[in-house]
C-alpha cells in the first residue's frame, strides 16, 4: 500500500493511500496530490540514505510520497 503524507501540526497526516491495481484510489491520490501542490506544498520521494527527489506528478509506484512546505533563509 502506497501512502501520501503531509508534514503538519499533527506530526504528519496521511492524505491518501493506494495500490497500483486500484484505479479509483490512484485517481483520488493524484487529485489530492495536485490539490496540495496548488496550496504550496512540495512533493518529495525519499530514495534511501542521503537521497530524495522532488516530484511534480504523483509517482504511483513509490511506497511513500511526502509533502513538505517551502523553506527560506531566516
Amino acid at each position, binding site marked *: 500500500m502506497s501512502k501520501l503524507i503531509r*508534514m503538519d501540526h499533527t*506530526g504528519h497526516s496521511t492524505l491518501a493511500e493506494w495500490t497500483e491495481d486500484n484505479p479509483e484510489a490512484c485517481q483520488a491520490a493524484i487529485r489530492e496530490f495536485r490539490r496540495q501542490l496548488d496550496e504550496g506544498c512540495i512533493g*518529495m520521494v525519499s530514495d534511501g540514505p542521503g537521497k*530524495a*527527489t*522532488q516530484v511534480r506528478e504523483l*509517482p504511483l509506484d513509490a511506497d511513500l510520497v511526502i509533502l513538505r512546505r517551502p523553506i*527560506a*533563509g531566516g
Partner: protein
Amino acid sequence: MAEAALPELAAVPWRGRVDARYLQRRGWLWTLQTVAFVVPFTLAGIALIALEPLALPVALASFAHGWVIPELHAFRGSNTIRPPRGPRNEKAEPVAQGFLGDLLGHDARDLQRETGLAMERGALGVWLLGEAGAVLVANGGRRVHCFCVGTAERDLPPSDRVAHLLLALRTDEAGLATVANHAFSGAPWRLRRRIRKEQRPALNAAVKAAR
C-alpha cells in the same frame, strides 16, 4: 516528473549557486574580518600601554573589543541551531520524531534524539540540521559554516522542521546552501564554545566525520 533543483531557488534569483569554492571564499572573508578586528584592537592596546602605562584601563577596553566582536560573530552562528524561542508544538513531537527517525540512519537517529540535531553527509561536508538553521562542517573538518534556514510554518513540531531541511538537503545540497542565509564561518572550536552543551557531541561527531 522529477526535479533536481529546489523550487525555493526561484525566490532568490540574484544569488549564485553555492559550491565548495564559494564557501571557501566566504570562509576566507570571515577569517580576514576576524583578523581585522583582533589585530588593530590588540595593537592599539599594546601601544597605549607602551606610551602611557596609566592608560591601562583604556588598553584593556581595546583588548576586550578585539575579543568580544569575534565572539559575537560566533554567537550569531550558534543561534542558527539554537531551538527557536516561543511556544513549541511538543504535543505532536513524538509522531514527528518517529517520522524523522525513519528518514535517518541508526546512528544519526540516536544523535538527533540526544542533541536535537540531525547529521547528514553531503558533497560539501557534513551537515547538522536544526529546527531553524544548519551548520556545515566543510570537508577536512577545519571550518564550519552556519546558515539560517527553515520553514515559516509556526505550528510544525520541532522534528518536522528538521525533516523539512533534511529532505531539502537530500534533494539539492547546493540549492539548500544557496537559499539559506550565511550567518557565520570560522573554526569549529569557536562555534563549540557558543552552542548548547547538549549540542556539542553532534558538532564533535560532525567534525570527526568531515576529516
